[in-house]
């Protein structure tokens, strides 16, 4: 099965600055990929390249089998896009805005009221967009991106300005779309938010792809090892005496001992703990720590 979106060695330069360099990315039908990076990491540039709004200086892009810059109308009709800081004509109402975009996609306007309800804007649909808060504009942006049940959704910072309840309903909508076979790419500053919501994460830094894999593998590749913590008076005494086999354990304040170890070694270590061991704790790196490690360049690209 050919990928919905495929980037091969894509590079984009603005003047002397490379906003994206040698990026490979594949997005299959029904998959959801998170694009993570700080401001200026190249996330929006990549999304604009996938939409054909920017032409890459190097490499090749294929969206549903065609070059998006060719402006193929049939392909565009199957794409949904939510730009970062989405903006609309302030003099139009919410429903007028959605109707305008639905007409361009040749969609039945009768579904639009339901779509606005789905993103929590039913009550404000007759208000002018100029009076909308940032979160409301974001929800309207999401509604327009969902027009026509797209086969590929490209969402640039989609949850900015959404409260936790709306964020949950947003991810529910994405899950529905994935079940229908849509390929979804969403960019975010926060890796932690994407846990459980995406199949794969691509970490970008200064225009380069630093990592590409599921969250479990990113933890492994980040270079940050898990830590095993345990409270045991017997081990504590032996560590204080420098006795083997516990010499690698570090004492912590409060009578705890900690060992940095590989994930694969944890079961064995747990089995060999002394009988008086209690308060056993496995501390795995948080996603924010993993992300920070990749940004520092400590991680290895998967």
């Amino acid at each position, binding site marked *: 099965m050919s990928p919905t979106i495929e980037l091969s060695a894509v590079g984009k330069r603005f003047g002397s600055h490379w906003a994206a360099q040698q990026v490979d990315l594949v997005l299959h039908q029904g998959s959801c990929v998170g694009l993570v990076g700080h401001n200026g990491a190249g996330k929006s540039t990549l999304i604009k390249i996938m*939409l054909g709004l*920017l*032409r890459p200086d190097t490499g090749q892009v294929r969206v549903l089998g065609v070059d998006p810059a060719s*402006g193929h*109308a049939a392909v565009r009709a199957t794409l949904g896009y939510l730009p970062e800081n989405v903006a609309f004509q302030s003099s139009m109402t919410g429903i007028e805005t959605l109707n305008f975009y639905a007409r*361009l996609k040749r969609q039945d306007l009768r579904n639009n009221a339901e779509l606005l309800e789905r993103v929590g804007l039913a009550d404000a649909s007759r208000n002018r967009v100029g009076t909308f808060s940032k979160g409301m504009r974001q929800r309207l942006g999401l509604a*327009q991106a969902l027009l026509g049940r797209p086969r590929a959704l490209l969402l640039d910072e989609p949850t900015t300005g959404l409260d936790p309840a709306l964020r949950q309903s947003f991810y529910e909508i994405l899950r529905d779309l994935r079940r229908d076979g849509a390929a979804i790419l969403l960019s975010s500053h926060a890796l932690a938010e994407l846990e459980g919501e995406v199949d794969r994460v691509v970490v970008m830094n200064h225009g380069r792809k630093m990592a590409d894999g599921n969250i479990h593998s990113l933890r492994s590749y980040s270079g940050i090892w898990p830590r095993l913590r345990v409270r045991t008076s017997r081990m504590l005494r032996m560590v204080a005496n420098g006795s083997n086999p516990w010499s690698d354990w570090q004492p912590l304040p409060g009578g705890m001992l900690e060992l940095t170890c590989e994930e694969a070694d944890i079961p064995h270590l747990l089995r060999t703990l002394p009988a008086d061991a209690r308060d056993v704790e496995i501390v795995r790196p948080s996603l924010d720590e993993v992300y920070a490690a990749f940004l520092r360049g400590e991680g290895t690209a998967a």
Partner: protein
Amino acid sequence: MRQTTIIAAKELRDGLRNRWVLAITLLLAVFALTLAFLGAAPTGVVKVSPLGVTIVSLSSLTVFLLPLIALLLSYDAIVGEIDRGTMGLLLAYPVARWQVVLGKFLGHCAILAIATVVGYGVAGLMLGLNGGGDAETWRAFAMLVATAVLLGAVFIALGYLVSATVRDCGTAGGIAIGIWLFFVLIYDMALLGLLVATQGQGIDGSVLNWLLLANPTDAFRLFNLAGTPGVASLSGLSGLAAQVQLRPAAMAGALMLWVLVPLAGTVAVFSRRQV
């Protein structure tokens, strides 16, 4: 064509909603009525057609006002949408860039046409009720309104070309003012200066024709002031009308070209632009 119509309808609705149409219509109506009744006041004594005098006055008003209004409508049509971030979203939809340009153009032309027809039409109607003029003068009035919209369309297209080329709205606004100053004020003064300085030597009729067609406001002025004998005699251009060997069709054709060339240029520049 469907996508173009959708975009044109949106532009027109925006124009109606943000009071652009109302403001321009009122402005043109107030000026036109003032010129029709104050400017045509002496006609009762000299027995000339008040409508003919009004055409002369409105032609001058149009040359100053319509290009300015058209440039105000158009200078940020593309760069403004790119700045605000609405263009990227629009272009992600199944719509070609030429359709965006053409849709905006038709919408803005409709705004200008409504304002001009209503604004000038009110003055024409009032003069008509007061026994305005003969059939030929009415035809000239209708042509004035039509060519005023065409002149507006020229400057909308020029505004788009600027808007598609520059990187920010401020620059677009500055260049738009420059275009207005050049075509409305500087060009004719420079041409006059050239004619006086050279005593007309080396500038024969055909060169003058081309020089006049090279400025859309001159083509408009000549079309309306020298094209109708009854009006030419009132405008003081009957002598010029005899000298200029341009047919009205050539002048209208020049105006059409002044629309099409910048519009095609806009499409070409905008198609290559990365949003």
